[in-house]
């Protein structure tokens, strides 16, 4: 069976896969793809994969005759793909491309907890959008508000501030979008993370993809910020 993985190659593959999973779990890398809650399971499975590799090498070394004769599945070769993807490329968290191809996932929350009565408000993109659309900005009027998210431009070049939300992993990520008005920086590059300061705007528009509601935000100041460790927002997806 030419091209099949023998036990030693399988052991090497399992070891590398385990080491990669451990690396992703020990650093912030896994936050680009899955929720933080999966971390213990990731570390556990990485350790099991390495133990399996070690056991395979150990038994093949002690009783090499058992390594023969059994046809190994050729499909195992495919496991090199996620390995290479994680080691070499480490694809970034979903950004403006997905955001502009997916409709806003804004849903009406169950309730609106009280906001601090004084001082500037720091809100998530999802929370601002939900309060603006479903609470008619009752507690937002006349307040200085700051929101953080990344920039996305739609087909006509209109700027949005976006945060992706996860249900389970990046495969089901959905964006929540805020349209920008006011003193929007003249040159905006998609996927730049910005902290915007400004005020509530009663203007509304609809998402070109799914006709979902998109509130406006009146920008007074914009400051580039580094991407947060956990690029996804799950506060709104409850």
């Amino acid at each position, binding site marked *: 069976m030419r*091209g*099949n993985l023998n036990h030693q190659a399988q052991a090497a593959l399992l070891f590398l896969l385990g080491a990669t999973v451990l690396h992703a779990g020990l650093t912030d890398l896994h936050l680009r*793809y899955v929720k933080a809650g999966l971390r213990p399971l990731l570390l556990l499975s990485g350790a099991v994969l390495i133990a399996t590799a070690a056991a395979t090498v150990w038994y093949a*070394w002690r009783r090499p005759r058992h390594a023969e004769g059994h046809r190994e599945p050729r499909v195992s070769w495919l496991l090199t793909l996620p390995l290479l*993807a994680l080691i*070499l490329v480490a694809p970034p968290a979903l950004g403006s491309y997905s955001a502009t191809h997916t409709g806003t996932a804004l849903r009406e929350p169950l309730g609106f907890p009280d906001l601090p009565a004084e001082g500037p408000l720091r809100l998530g993109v999802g929370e601002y959008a939900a309060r603006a659309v479903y609470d008619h900005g009752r507690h937002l009027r006349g307040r200085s508000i700051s929101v953080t998210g990344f920039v996305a431009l739609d087909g006509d070049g209109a700027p949005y501030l976006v945060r992706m939300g996860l249900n*389970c992993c990046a*495969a089901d990520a959905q964006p929540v979008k805020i349209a920008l008005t006011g003193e929007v920086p003249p040159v905006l590059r998609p996927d730049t993370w910005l902290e915007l300061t400004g005020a509530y705007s009663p203007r509304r528009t609809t998402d070109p993809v799914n006709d979902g509601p998109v509130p406006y935000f009146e920008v007074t100041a914009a400051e580039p910020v580094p991407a947060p460790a956990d690029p996804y927002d799950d506060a709104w997806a409850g």
Partner: protein
Amino acid sequence: MALTRQSPRGAGAPGDARQGKEPVEEPRHLDSALLLTLLLLTAVMFQDPVRRALAAPVMQSWMTVFVAVVLQALPFLVLGVLLSAAIAVFVPPSFFARALPKRPALAVPVAGAAGAVLPGCECASVPVAGALVRRGVAPAAALAFLLSAPAINPVVLTATAVAFPDAPEMVLARFVASLLVACAMGWLWQRPGRADRLRPPSRSSYEGQGRGPAFWGSVRHDVTHAGGFLVIGAMAAATLKAVVPAEWLRAAAGHPVLSVLALAALAVLLSICSEADAFVAASLTQFSLTARLAFLVVGPMVDLKLFAMQAGTFGRPFALRFAPATLALAVAVSALTGAVLL
């Protein structure tokens, strides 16, 4: 890297040991450890052009979804493989023959429900069902077990609950629909003249080994085997997500009958491991819960890789009749269950 330390031994020692055993076969072997080393080194050498080629936003988003599905499913796959290896090695198959009722009509639901306590994905349940038939369990009961075990075991149900945090009724619906289909198929195959189409498998691959080698051999084989199919599933899911226009999916998702059929067909084509399929189903957000239930019920029972495994274990004539019948029944039952429960 670690690979270069490991591979000389891997490439050399066992190959030498094998040479005396099968001298005719050996020259045709392309050493896979060597091949793996070359592949990885080449990839590292050409990483800059590869990165540039993958810099297009659509490729980036494809890879992110691909890696996300693999990372999300891998811990559950590893967990299931560990448990199924423990059961395959430490629980004697004769135990199941003693535990089941003698009358096949009664043994079918008992075996179906027994699937709930035997964790593992469908790749693991085919060999276990083969072992059950060999140890004298009625074929109808073994078939009920074969269909129910990958769908209703605790690992899979937990993964389903994690994947659908907003819809806990999905777990119940999956359990009920899968168990119904498994029992119905068992009873259908219990009719006289049916069982003879099932060719019992002849050997167990782990007999004659110590428990340690058998356990770790089972883990190694199942992880690389099921993991490979998981990669296929993740690639298909990422392609669906990143490349297929959202309008197509929305058009299919908008029609209640079409959406169920579309996701049932998708489950057959994707062949995702049942420990991972809930996460793929959760990502198909355009579709109704009923359509996604059909995806979750059909997937562990009928798919391309499972068909290949069933044909290999029980014979092609059996698989050719069994798989389409299961597919039809699974679609009908999940549509009904979805109408009642979801």
